[in-house]
């Protein structure tokens, strides 16, 4: 425990490196494209359009509240799709690969290896931040008012950051030894996406009336995070303090476990990647 705290302090010294690596990731991603950074806005925008089209018009929502307004459903969808597809899923997928991809770096240079998954999570977080104005912009366009509950958005983001980071550390360390995880993850994330209340609201009767499904929903940390976004942006309601608070604690525990496992396996990385 003390060891980990010391390591975290050490990490603070490397914040400039994290910062530079994140900006390198962002620069490198769009280097050579004509639209450059615009892609950070265009990508979520296109995502929004696709979801609106498919779930608004082709498969209309079976949800009374949305029945007459497909565009409203798009806004609801986007509350969950943006943090999931732009931030969470790519962070985890990249983390599962990052130590293997940067093997040369791990073998040849001296720096805290955990920086690599941290950079993966953080650079995708920045992409998410770029997409956020699109989401906020579409609130009035799609016919919803701004509410003061938007101010709680940073809290939800914090919870997701801690949760994502914990999982990213765990996944990146384990993938070095069990490379199958990389392939399992791709499928697992799709399943997880549909198992979380993103394309449907958690309060839907079908979920609430089914004991087991309800339990599964409640046990899924991403449920509460996604719900948090929807409360802040879409419903304009107070976030569920207790649920989000517990999720935050769970995320902290996961972060601790993730860092612990990472630290335990750290010395084996240079040989295994």
């Amino acid at each position, binding site marked *: 425990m003390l060891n980990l705290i010391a390591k975290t302090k050490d990490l603070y010294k490397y914040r400039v490196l994290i910062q*530079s690596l994140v900006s*390198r990731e962002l620069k490198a991603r769009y280097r050579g494209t004509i639209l450059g950074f615009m892609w950070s806005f265009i990508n979520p925008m296109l995502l929004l359009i696709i979801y609106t089209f498919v779930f608004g018009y082709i498969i209309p929502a079976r949800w009374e509240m949305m029945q007459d307004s497909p565009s409203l459903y798009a806004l609801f969808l986007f509350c969950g799709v943006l943090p999931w597809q732009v931030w969470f899923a790519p962070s985890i997928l990249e983390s599962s690969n990052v130590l293997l991809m940067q093997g040369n770096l791990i073998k*040849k*240079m*001296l720096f805290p290896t955990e920086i690599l998954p941290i950079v993966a999570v953080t650079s995708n977080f920045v992409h998410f931040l770029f997409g956020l104005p699109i989401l906020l912009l579409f609130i009035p366009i799609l016919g919803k008012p701004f509410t003061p509950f938007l101010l709680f958005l940073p809290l939800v983001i914090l919870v997701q950051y801690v949760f994502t980071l914990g999982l990213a550390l765990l996944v990146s360390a384990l993938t070095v030894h069990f490379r199958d995880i990389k392939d399992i993850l791709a499928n697992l994330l799709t399943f997880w996406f549909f198992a979380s209340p993103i394309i449907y609201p958690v309060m839907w009767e079908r979920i609430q009336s089914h004991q087991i499904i309800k339990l599964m929903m409640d046990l899924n940390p991403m449920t509460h995070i996604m719900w948090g976004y929807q409360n802040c942006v879409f419903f304009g309601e107070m976030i569920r303090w207790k649920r989000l608070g517990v999720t935050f604690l769970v995320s902290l525990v996961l972060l601790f476990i993730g860092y612990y496992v990472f630290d335990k396996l750290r010395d084996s990385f240079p040989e295994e990647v």
Partner: protein
Amino acid sequence: MHAIEIENLTRIYQKYSSQHRFKTFKSALLKGDLFRSLRPDELVNALDDVSFAIETGSTFGVIGENGSGKSTLLKVVAGIAKPTSGRVEVRGKVAALIELGAGFHPEITGRENIFINGIMLGLTKKQIQDRYDDIVRFAELEEFIDAPVKTYSSGMYMRLGFSIAINVNPDVLLVDEVLAVGDASFVPKCLDRIDDFRRRKKTILFVSHDLSTVEKICDRVAWLKHGRVQTIGESRRVIDAYLQDVTEKAEDAFEQRQHEIEQEEHFEEAEERRENRWGKREIEIKKVRMKGLGGKEKHVFSPDEGMVIEMEVEAYSRIRDFVFGIGIFNAQGILVYGTNTLLEEYDAVEAQGKGKVSCRLERMNLVNGTYYLDVAIHKRDGYPYDYHRSLYSFLVSSRLKDGGIFRPDHTWEFSENFRLKPPERRDT
């Protein structure tokens, strides 16, 4: 005062087989015993009880064959690999030139890479800013610094990497074989910088295969063999001991190969061998030996050594017209030297029965490489009795890398205003 202290350092590498990995993945999933199942199948002792200390301000070389643990040693000193047991202590800021430009990202520019690489090596942004011009100038990349690194040639890549690392200005510099890839004009520049470091009393740990460089710049040298320190001490003595060992090994390997060839020939390749040997063998060359001037049979020679080519010959009848000849060819098939008794105006009188014929070369005067030997007995008009075409080979191994096919004995002289430090003469 010691800049680096290493005590009883042991580093064991763990190898996991893929089959094992599959098993553990299953068991890890089923039983959840992740850490227990991560046990390796095989242990490799990369460093075995290594101890030495390096004086602050000295340059220390590490030599040894591939896989002897040199790079592992450097990585442990750099902190990239952890010692399995033992103690490593380094005083001062360390920079490791293990692989130049290891952290470069191909898609972003040289400028951006300088900053990121510099930060990774422990500089602050401010420090990099101050040294930026020096770095670019030293790397000779002024024109290309704003192009993505993926467009660089490997030489440019290496120059930039070296330039950043050397500008970190560490107290302890670790250098691993990085100069091997540099272009001809840049390597001396790098060596200059390293020299500069030495003058400023910084500590350098230098790992290389390039023995002449090691000898030139290192105060002391350790020779690693199979992860153990074989010898440690004054550069020339250690390098000599190492060279001795390498030569002996080459001799062994050569004999082994020779032996294998003979074995094969008995079964399959007798046919092929016959193609390289012709003549009716009225006089037969029954055996050919290569010996040192001392009379010991050997196949690896140094350039200033001599060689005796000894043929066992048997004439089955009384023969009056015969010429003994030899020819030495290099690996490209170029005749390096050829002569025979006729050309040297020996007059054949009579040959009968068994006997020996030797040709004594006082000095090889050849450059590094593999050479093939022809031996023959023929008539004055060229009719062959027994001709052996490239059936024998030997190796010339030299510490110097001079070129060409022949090394005339030579010396250098300079008038007094051109001052050079002569190499310390050695006799190998």
